[in-house]
């Protein structure tokens, strides 16, 4: 069974025909062609597919696509682009927080959700805020640095 949904995707209205059993992750990757949203496990364990859904960070693999009808969806591409990157994206680059880059899109989105609710987090709070996003390359330290650096920039 399929149904039509309408989402506000990175600021633009998008209509998608999705299966009622389809995950939002699959709808975003396969139907909306949002390949920046990564699939690391499809079962909510790794956080690579994290997106903002009405401002909250969610694992898009754990959301059914029909549940996103009428919602605002933001991926890492919605946070900034080459001509106008977000402070978080800048922070990730200058802090050396990116190695293979596969966790990066989800990590940046989770960090965005964290800073939206807690603009001045401690390192421990950043670690807690990102605990749902696995990274196998960096050991997390430079990611924490990046978020700290972005928070300082945002607050200055």
């Amino acid at each position: 069974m399929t149904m039509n949904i309408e989402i506000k995707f990175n600021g633009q209205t998008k209509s998608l025909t999705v299966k009622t059993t389809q995950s939002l992750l699959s709808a975003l990757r396969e139907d909306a062609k949002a390949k920046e949203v990564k699939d690391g496990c499809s079962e909510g364990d790794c956080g690579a597919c994290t997106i903002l859904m009405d401002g909250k960070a969610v694992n898009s693999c754990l959301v059914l696509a029909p549940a996103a009808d009428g919602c605002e969806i933001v991926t890492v591409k919605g946070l900034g682009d080459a001509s106008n990157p977000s402070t978080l994206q800048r922070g990730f680059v200058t802090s050396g927080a990116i190695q293979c880059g596969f966790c990066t899109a989800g990590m940046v989105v989770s960090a965005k959700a964290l800073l939206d609710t807690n603009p001045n987090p401690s390192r421990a709070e950043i670690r807690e805020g990102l605990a749902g996003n696995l990274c196998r390359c960096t050991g997390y330290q430079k990611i924490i640095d990046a978020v700290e650096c972005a928070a300082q920039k945002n607050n200055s």
Partner: protein
Amino acid sequence: MSFKDKNFRIVGKPMPRHDAWEKVLGNVSYAGDHEIPGMLHVKVLRSEYAAARLIAIDTSAALAVKGVETVLTAEDVPNNETVTKFGQTHTVGGFEGLYRVLAEKKVRFFGEAVAIVAAKSPEICDEALKLIRVEYEPLEGVFDPAEALKPGAYLVGEDDSNLICQYKVRKGDIGAGFAKADVIVENTYRVPQVDHAYLETECGSAWLAEDGVLTIRASTQVIEHFRGIAEVLGLPQNKVRVIAPMVGGGFGGKEDITVETFLALVVFKTSKPCTMTWTREESLLSHGKRHAYTMKYKTGASSDGKLVALEVDILSDAGAYVYLSPWILLYSTVKATGPYNIETVKVDARTVLTNNIFASANRGFGGVQVCFAYERQMDEVAKALGMDPLELRRKNFLHQGDALATGRVLEHAVETEQTAINVRKMLGEKTVSDKANILIGQGIASSMMSYGRMTFLHDTSRSYVSIELDGSVTIRCGVQDIGCGQKSSLASIAAEVLGVELTDVTVYFGDTALTPLAGTTTATRQLYMSGNATLKAAQYIRDNLLNKGAEVLKVAVEDLDLADNKLVVDSDPSLAMPLAELVKICASDGVELFNLAQFNAPAREFMDFTTGQGQVFADFTFGSHGIEVAVDTDTGKAEVLKYVSSYDVGQALNTLSAEGQIEGGAIYGLGYGMTEEILYEKGRALNANLATYLIPTAMDVPDIEVDMIESHGGIGPFGAKGLGEPSSVPSAPAFVNAVCNAIGKSLSELPATPERILRALKN
């Protein structure tokens, strides 16, 4: 500041990586992101038995499903079985193994590929997979390497023994060594099979190009598998092309073929494009793991702390197929002593087939398992002698000019002792616990890990560098970039030598058709090998530029330099000429501003396998880790309070990147120490997902204090040493040494879980 006076502009500075922006903006097309109109989806039917005879496979019902394009089994594969010299290009004895694309005769492990389906959608694939009828005759199997060695044991393969190979090292008279010992410490250490758990599972796409070249774009550390794929299909090697886009983590797990042959087969049979991405469960079940080892260590020491004898017996579980097991075992054999000078040494090592998932490369490649044993053993010997663990290590460290037990003299920089002293200092005084149930402990561990492949493999790498007419720089090099900054490092080297900025360099990488072959991204070899090749090519262009510049400006070549996109005259800055202008002059005069360079690693003959004497590695990276833990005696939980790491990096190409390797390596290794283990029940992995196979999260680990020594004594570009694997090697023993120090008991098994710690506390 320039390359000329070694006062570098780019090398050795903290720089944002060359590939960072494309990744943070979400613009990188990884292997699983590529779509081709009309592409088929491919899925694998996997064995539900660890050991079974394959009687028959009926694919007719699956083939009848609407939307199914093809269903393939072993008999559809032109050459289903090939004997591969895994990952290498020279014929040497003892390093060959059977590579089987799809199961035939006997199934050897749970999760082994039995058939593949290609269909119009993933859902149709799933439906068809359910309709394939496989008739198995279950067999008893063998799951323990010691059992597998016994006479009459179940035979995993078609040979008459499960033993794959054995190595030994002999130095001096071991009996006389032990006779001199005042204390003898004997322990058996066990380490489990573990997974790489990269965030990107195995994936790729493939198509038939208009010129008939079968093209595969896959997440791989080795594009040169195009040769093996061609052999499987019976095609000439130049009719198969492999492209590796940015890889979402490798750590050795994408060193062997994963999706490539399946994709290639579907294109070969259907001429249609196709794609495949493994699920996390599939990834955990069916790519090679790090070997589980049982290691018996017997160490003799004199009362003043000199190691006089070491006897080691290593038993490695290779799992169901040979893959890289013999190589990894050789690494372990040579490194079994650790970075210590021991008077007499006897090492015996064997690797054995079982019906567990096959084991192959994983960051540290046989150097990790033995490090756990030799570094735990050092602390146990120190305890027996009543000596400080650092002091015992300092009495026995190998130094430059000393020989390994294999007779190989360490010609290059050896800073192990300094790194150990540094981590001890960085750890500082023990934190004081204010709770009765919290015990604090500190531990250190040192290691030596090779970078670059074994010297008898006669390794080479090629890189092409050119300067465009506007002064921008292009590199073409067949490296696979698996996230460690392979591409970025090459850009740094060329930018430094040619006096341009990092952003002025474009690097084309990972394509067997368009980039010169640079070998595998494994063995911590790319900075060393392709870095040297790129340096050589860039140097050739630099020489041509400077010679022409000297002629045009009528000054001595020695007076010239390249910096900040200019030809600079040291004695008269007013004469400086824009690089682009000099390039135009060179172009019109026919001066070559391109070069394809090959770097050849120092090559040696095979070691003598009867004595274990000879050279196996070109150089090593030495380093130490220090950890402080707080152990809760009620729960057994060990929290890492402090983590310090010190390495001689030779020369950091990009200090931010090098720190990133050291930090990431530490945490990758800490997972091995704390939580990671594939749990088995008769060959069936019980924890094939990331909810039960636990890798460290941001909450589980502390910040790491990094110390980098730059000896400039490596054999990579500018004296660099490799870091990718070495940075991870001593984590687990440092962690367990800290736990043992806290609780006053001995642990000899990984991972040191709360359960194991509690059990040790009760003993």
